[in-house]
């Protein structure tokens, strides 16, 4: 069902607490249909898992979660956000989908002042000139993972690199971030069509160019196609393969052994060894019968962040400004599954970025963290943001 009411918990909370209880309404918006539906579903499951673990409450207050599908379309996302803000009067919006959908609703969100937590994106505009006190990201600033991969490759002596990404803002951000930290030679920078399924032409070009390594960004189904076709062309064994958001929890089930030998960078992976993450991964796998992705982790963290923030705001939780300030402060206080976390002045995460390798564990893929190229990394757009 589209609208989930955790009414039973609300009733319990009311009975238990006795005192006048405010209801916290959360609007959850993500792509739940179409080719990237798995991303939206992971985020929803991660968020709801955290909610379930805190008894259906955030900060001690009863919660109602309204779930909507933005279909990866900016126009639909705009409508959904409008509905959340104007009709449902939510206290906070979580999810906000891909960068393009997020940008499509940005004006509505900043005009209204409602707290909005992106669990999937952090495009450079909202990290820079269009930053707002009520817009946060518990995922990443888009360039971060790519910057980390660039630094890793620079430090590991790769000299000539070939770049590939889909032809949209996030693709450009990724490659731009990579180039900020990689100082070697960029042989070529190839942008393919968004949603393209067959990379045979580009792979042939790649083979002909003979680089030291290839770095790519292909989220969702595109990543599955890209890696598998590379593997079929025999390129994965011949050419060191680096990527971001291409090999992750959402694509590994389809890639399986094809991913072995690749290296990727992210702010989180199920393989990270810290107590919060071990608990989260175990609980998620037990409940949903699959390994969580970084999107699920970001959404899980968003719920835990809101838990601390709502508790901080207390009776003021209904006031938009107060809640936004509480969320900002809570950033440094809640325990994230990815390790250290806090918000930069532009509300982007300041976090570690790790390098992971997919190794061959008796024929099955196993992810292992091999380095932390960037620790407590502050994004490069903060200077353009006018927030204090």
């Amino acid at each position, binding site marked *: 069902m589209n609208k989930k009411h955790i009414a039973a918990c609300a009733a319990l909370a009311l009975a238990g607490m006795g005192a006048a209880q405010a209801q916290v309404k959360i609007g959850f918006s993500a792509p739940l*249909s179409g080719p990237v539906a798995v991303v939206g579903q992971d985020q929803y499951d991660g968020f709801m898992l955290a909610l379930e673990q805190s008894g259906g409450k955030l900060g001690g207050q009863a919660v109602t979660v309204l779930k909507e599908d933005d279909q990866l379309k900016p126009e639909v996302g*705009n409508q959904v956000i409008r509905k959340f803000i104007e009709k449902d009067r939510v206290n906070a919006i979580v999810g906000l989908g891909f960068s393009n959908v997020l940008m*499509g609703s940005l004006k509505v969100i900043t005009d209204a002042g409602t707290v909005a937590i992106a669990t999937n994106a952090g495009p450079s505009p909202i990290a820079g000139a269009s930053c707002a006190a009520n817009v946060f990201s518990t995922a990443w600033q888009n360039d971060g993972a790519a910057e980390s991969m660039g630094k890793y490759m620079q430090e590991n002596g790769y000299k000539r690199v070939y770049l590939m990404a889909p*032809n949209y*803002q996030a693709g450009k951000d990724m490659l731009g971030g990579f180039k900020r930290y990689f100082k070697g030679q960029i042989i070529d920078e190839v942008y393919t069509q968004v949603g393209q399924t067959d990379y045979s032409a580009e792979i042939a070009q790649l083979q002909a160019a003979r680089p030291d390594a290839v770095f790519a960004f292909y989220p969702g189904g595109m990543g599955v196609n890209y890696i598998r076709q590379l593997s079929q062309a025999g390129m994965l064994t011949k050419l060191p393969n680096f990527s971001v958001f291409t090999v992750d929890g959402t694509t590994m089930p389809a890639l399986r052994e094809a991913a072995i030998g690749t290296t990727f960078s992210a702010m989180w992976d199920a393989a990270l060894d810290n107590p919060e993450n071990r608990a989260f991964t175990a609980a998620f796998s037990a409940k949903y019968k699959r390994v969580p992705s970084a999107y699920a982790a970001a959404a899980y963290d968003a719920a835990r962040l809101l838990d601390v923030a709502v508790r901080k705001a207390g009776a003021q939780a209904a006031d938009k400004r107060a809640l936004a300030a509480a969320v900002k402060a809570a950033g440094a206080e809640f325990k994230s599954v990815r390790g250290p976390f806090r918000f930069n002045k532009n509300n982007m995460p300041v976090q570690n970025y790790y390098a992971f390798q997919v190794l061959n564990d008796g024929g099955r893929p196993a992810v292992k963290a091999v380095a932390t190229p960037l620790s407590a990394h502050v994004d490069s757009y903060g200077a353009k943001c006018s927030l204090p």
Partner: protein
Amino acid sequence: MTIWIALKRPAMLVPALLLAGLALVPCVATAVDQPFYIVFFARILVYAIAASALNVALGFGGMVSLGHALFLGIGAYSVAIPAFYGIDNGWVHLAVCIAACALVGLLTGAVSLRTTGIGFIMITLAFAQMGYFVFVSLKQFGGDDGTPITATSRFFGQDLGQPLTVYAVAFAVLCLVIWWSARLRAAPFGMVLRGARQNPRRINAIGLQAKRYQLAAYVMSAVLCGIAGMLLANLTAFASPATLGWVVSGDLIVMIVLGGIGTVFGPLLGALAFLGAEELLKSVTEYWQAVFGLVIFLVALLRTAGLAGLLERLSPHGLVASGDSASAQPTPPAGGTRQVHPEANPYPVAGGGA
């Protein structure tokens, strides 16, 4: 024939009541403090305008264009691109919109009308896809992500970016378009157009060039669709290449068929039904698209004359020629659903029909 007698027939009364209701939406919405519905119905109004525009080409002229979303997109970007450079003068936006849509409509229409039937459908689709790729390649204006519009159109000091303003303007434009298309339908131009749809050879034999009239109608339809796009961009404060997708064109066609092809109120009824049903279904089930798809299939199968046709059937036949609110086809022979259309295979398969 006074307006009151005309209003007694359901075919006129229901749309009139709907329009009156739509006029009242802003007041009611503000009164119950649900401003969301102003935006919701404004969107319906915008799509009704776009569907009415397509109806001129498709319903009157018989040109099945699966690429009208191209003009919707051009209209949206004719606001977005000047806004990017800080130009918020509504008249500039409007001028750019009309000029661009007229030019593109003329060029694409001239080429498309060299074909008929499935060729026409495909080539209009191709042009819309080409437009899509052009806008995706415009990196400055966001490319595939689209671009937010910070400087919405200003007319006479009023900002179209405000929901109430854009609602009022959209409502006014819709009423104008409906009135204009009713007049067009009965005018000599409209007659020739409808004749060209039914039998181009005859029209040419009479001495009128059917293709010229069709091209003119296509261009007019393109410009109107562009204006709808302009309003859409102001409403959402956003423009993206997704507006040019073939699914949007398909949606417009569904709205027209749902409402009744070739009728005057059909597009409005269709837009209301389509977007209303979508919203209703979304709240009932997560898998609403499956139900929606089936509904669309049934609508096509049952070959109803649309909602307007239904209303027409409920109305006693009066002296007013409300036109063939039945479908673009002649009424089917009794006992069979096989219909003959001038452009279809002249030897329809004998085995079909249920």
